[in-house]
């Protein structure tokens, strides 16, 4: 097997092509910067205002979650992984519980699968709303007075958090998924609340598009940070980043989990691969998620919401030796969970738990994309990748 090197420039090796006498300036960006979306550091080598080389440094939020999961029981892991992707916690707990269900061979009732799908789609809207608000704030005061879009998006996001508070009792870290189903059933009157909220947000999304149809916003995003389809596939980018580059790939349609095989999920793609394409893909995904959630919430079948008794003691789980990989489509892409069962206390906790975060792969595109752009574009590109450092560093 021969390893072919692609004919594009390697961002780590090709700095020597520049003159050593050139007056390069080193600019340290982060780890504490309002636009880095967490604690993330990029060292940029500037030739004038143009970035010549960019070296990202991660690990400022490394919390050892995978190691921590090895000594916790299966029921205790769910609230821990909530904190990984703290913008979309519903997907974290669903991913880890789907992996445990595959490992233990637990059946999930159909009602629980409906609830998981509905809360996932609503969470996707909330995550994209937060992304849109912070992205518009990163682009600065150019768009209608700075923080207007941020304030609007958080106004609508709070309504979604109210929905989840009604369902689970928690505003932020829900701990509602469990091995074999869900903990909280849909309360009375929740479906009407979902309809009212999502219908309201669907109107507001039109308003966001109207205010962001702005020449300055277009100038800051169009043609900025182009990721080609080949580069996206090579780096393992998934989710809206991959779809914005023109690759038609969505795990909800291509590898359906829950009840997505019965649904007709429209995969939103765009060509161009720049920041504007990523923005358009996410806004369309918001509308699609609203449509799916509103269609499902009236047709939830009756039945139990959990296939097993609530697990309190470790001996109640029967885990065979084996390994599973389960992936699902989060707002940021493919969130994979790889679990090896077995070990000394096989019925209590996994032997090894590996999380494949989409944000880490998204950040790996930075050294390829940033050279050639100005410093102000670096903020726009980093914002458009939508990285969550709790997930990338784990």
């Amino acid at each position, binding site marked *: 097997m021969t390893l072919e090197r692609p004919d594009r420039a390697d961002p780590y090796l090709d700095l020597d092509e520049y003159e050593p006498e050139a007056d390069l300036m080193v600019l340290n960006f982060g780890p504490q910067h309002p636009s880095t979306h*967490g*604690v993330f550091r990029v060292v940029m080598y500037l030739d004038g205002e143009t970035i010549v080389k960019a070296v990202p440094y991660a*690990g*400022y939020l490394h919390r050892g979650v995978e190691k921590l999961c090895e000594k916790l029981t299966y029921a205790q892991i769910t609230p821990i992984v909530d*904190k990984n992707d703290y913008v979309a916690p519903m997907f974290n707990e669903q991913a880890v519980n789907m992996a445990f269900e595959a490992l233990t061979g637990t059946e999930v009732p159909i009602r629980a699968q409906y609830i998981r799908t509905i809360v996932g789609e609503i969470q996707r809207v909330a995550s994209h709303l937060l992304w849109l608000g912070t992205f518009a704030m990163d682009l600065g005061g150019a768009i209608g007075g700075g923080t207007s879009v941020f304030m609007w998006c*958080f106004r609508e996001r709070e309504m979604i958090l109210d929905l989840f508070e009604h369902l689970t009792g928690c505003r932020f*870290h829900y701990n509602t998924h469990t091995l074999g189903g869900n903990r909280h059933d849909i309360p009375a009157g929740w479906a009407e609340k979902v309809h009212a909220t999502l219908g309201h947000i669907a109107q507001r999304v039109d308003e966001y598009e109207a205010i962001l149809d702005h020449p300055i916003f277009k100038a800051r995003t169009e043609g900025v940070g182009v990721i080609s389809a080949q580069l996206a596939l090579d780096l393992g980018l998934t989710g809206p980043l991959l779809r914005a580059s023109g690759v038609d790939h969505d795990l909800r349609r291509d590898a359906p989990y829950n009840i997505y095989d019965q649904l007709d999920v429209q995969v939103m793609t765009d060509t161009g691969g720049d920041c504007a394409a990523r923005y358009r893909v996410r806004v369309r995904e918001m509308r699609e998620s609203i449509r799916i959630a509103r269609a499902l919430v009236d047709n939830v079948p009756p039945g139990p919401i959990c296939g097993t008794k609530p697990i309190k003691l470790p001996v109640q789980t029967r885990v065979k030796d084996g390994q599973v990989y389960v992936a699902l489509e989060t707002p940021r892409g493919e969130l994979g969970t790889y679990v090896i069962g077995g070990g000394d206390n096989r019925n209590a906790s996994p032997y090894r738990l590996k999380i494949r975060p989409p944000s880490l792969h998204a950040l790996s595109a930075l050294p390829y994309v940033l050279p050639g752009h100005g410093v102000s574009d670096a903020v726009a590109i980093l914002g458009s990748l939508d990285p969550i450092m709790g997930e990338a560093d784990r």
Partner: protein
Amino acid sequence: MAVDESDLPFEHPLYDLMAKMPGLDLATTSVDKLLNWGVRNSLWIFPMATSCCGIEFMAAAASRVDMDRMGTIVRGTPRQSDVMVVAGTITVKMAPRVKRLWDQMPEPKWCVAMGSCAISGDFYRDIYSVIPGIDTVIPVDVYIPGCPPNPEELMGGMLALQEKVALKRAGLRVPPEVRPETAKMIKPRVGRAEDPTREKLIGHHQALQARTLDLTEPADLVEAMTPKAAADGDQEGGA
């Protein structure tokens, strides 16, 4: 041996000035009150937002809770800020940066630890890469518990900080801030299975219960596991 100066007159040029200008003492205290009022109501926040609590911090600054109406404007630079809100887990790699940013803030300055990760490290406190609480690095004035705290709780914490600032500026005694106790593991009444101090034999009451429940186990097993003294005492009591 110190000289007793209690009966000696204390002379200072300002005293003569104040004696000549009645009302100057009133002016100085009034200026102090004005300063106090200004500092209390313009606490600019430097968000040291690392993880989940940062999102709730943003929600607190956004439209529903709108913390700005208390004068707490969020600034992105430490050099223009009065309060550092540490929101989120602080790792070993991040702690020197937090200390450096804290040193860059001008006096007077305050620190708010938001969330259980910043207070004690929470369930990450035993992890190799997480420091157990931000107060091991910088002094903390207000602790806001929660994982993460609601925006309303953050607002309550900022109101508590305003009260504290007012007390301090007025020269009153400020009660020292005590870090809330970390949750301790409650020792179970019956030892856990892995606990080496757990009794090997079942207790007297458990043996009695086993008899009354009419378990399928042979009775001699219960007899064998019952301590001798307890079994004798039982028979005597029954007779």
